């Protein structure tokens, strides 16, 4: 099992901030400075799901005006 550092977990939460973001949007934010710790793309969704299971993130489904349905994450 790949281990994710505490700083990566904190960076994911920080990247979400007060917004509601999909996994891909989190990935895009993490790729921009000053974020960008070591979080490979394959580890993104397991990390998000771990944070949700630990109660540090909430997730829900939303459909935007283009009809795209995405699972969005936010801080509790």
């Amino acid at each position, binding site marked *: *099992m*790949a281990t994710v550092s505490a700083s990566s977990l904190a960076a994911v939460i920080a990247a979400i901030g007060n917004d509601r973001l*999909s*996994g*891909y*949007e989190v990935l*895009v934010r993490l790729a921009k400075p000053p974020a960008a710790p070591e979080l*490979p*793309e*394959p*580890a993104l*969704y*397991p*990390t998000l*799901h*771990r944070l949700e*299971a*630990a*109660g540090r993130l909430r997730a829900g*489904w939303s*459909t935007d005006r*283009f*009809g*795209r*349905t*995405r*699972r969005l994450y936010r801080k509790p």
Partner: protein
Amino acid sequence: MLEPDTNRSSSPDETPLPAEIDEYLSRLGAGLDLPAHVRAEIASEMAGHFRDSIAAIESEGLDPERAAREAIARLGSPTELAAELTSAHRTTRRLLSGAAGGVFQATLGAAGGMLLGIAIVAATLCEFAVVTGTLLKPPTEFLFAGLPALRAAMAGLPMATALLAWASCLAAFVAARRGVAVSSRISRRTPAAVRRVWAVAGFATLFVAAVFLVPAPQNLVSVLSLVAVPFVFAAAALTDSTPRVSLPRRKVIAAIGVLAILSTSFARNVPAWNGPLPDVANTPQAHAAQLREFDRVAPAWTYVGGHPVLAEGGGLWGSGVITQTINVWTFDPSTVDATAQELSQFKDIRFEAWRAVRFDASPAIAEWIPDPAYSAPYATAPADFHAGQLDAGQGQVEFDVSHVRTTEWIVFVTGTGPDGRRYRLNEPEFNMGGGPLVSSFTGTIWQWLTAST
């Protein structure tokens, strides 16, 4: 195969995914060891990710086919991702929440199942009462509506234990199903993964409770019925969902309602039919045969005025206690003194509780006699007819027989006569309906199994 959540991924504005992505999602789904609803959510989430990722890569100038391959390459092996996602969902916190939620829902299910089970058992008894009270009786007896026929079906406290055990079987079935479903959903373990845990834990708990902890009136039927409860629980936990039977619901409910009303109405007013009444009338031959059996307890003392010195004043029996009242014979007031004189010659007068068995004196006549398998009484108790009780003309004894499997009893009174021999002073006639005193074993199944007969 990973099936996307159709409620979320079938938006008409979203383009179909390339075949490579479908293949990736299939392999991802095959690797996810999670309940179906979680796998569907992951499928929808990953489909959305691929759409966003492919669109972004295409905007960098790659054609759709290469963009799909690049998106797959960035996300890595579906097998490894599946393992990581499975691990992410299976937290200890969810496991404990699943266990607690499952137990809570199983308890609610057990309560509901118990109520339903009792209703079904009660309805079945009503039907039994109607059938025995109507079809098996002469029509003229309808004029003499009397005791509810339910009493016939409920005869004996161990039968009540058995009926409750049958209702408990339904409760166990519902509890196991709800427990497995809810704990699987909350803990994110597949139903297959939690079934065995539920089956083993539930079986062990219910088996220990049924066999060692719960005291109740018991006989062989109640013991077998109670032992069935943990087996029903384990079977319900281990098997797949219940097959659905399609029935016209309104008609079925209406039919059950009408049947219940009719049944209750009949059962309340139709007297019970217990089969032909036992003929316990003593023919001289049968009585003589019975007395010979009584003499095995002790030889009878010479009667006074043609009667035994003592006579039964009535017997009572409960779940595990038998009570026998003995009267000093007062048939003729002039004989009381004579009876007292007779009794005064005896020492060590005592009540003796003997196990009884049915003695078929003739094909039509049934009597009860001391069980020939035993040469001594089960219990004795002093009967002090000399200190006060004689004046009242009565003596009473109470035997606790709740921990003996034997259910039929005869109480004798014996005393040591002037010649130093023990004599029998009464002649049990079996009051209260012409039968022996009846008890029932009360205790746990283990106590029943290890009890003496």
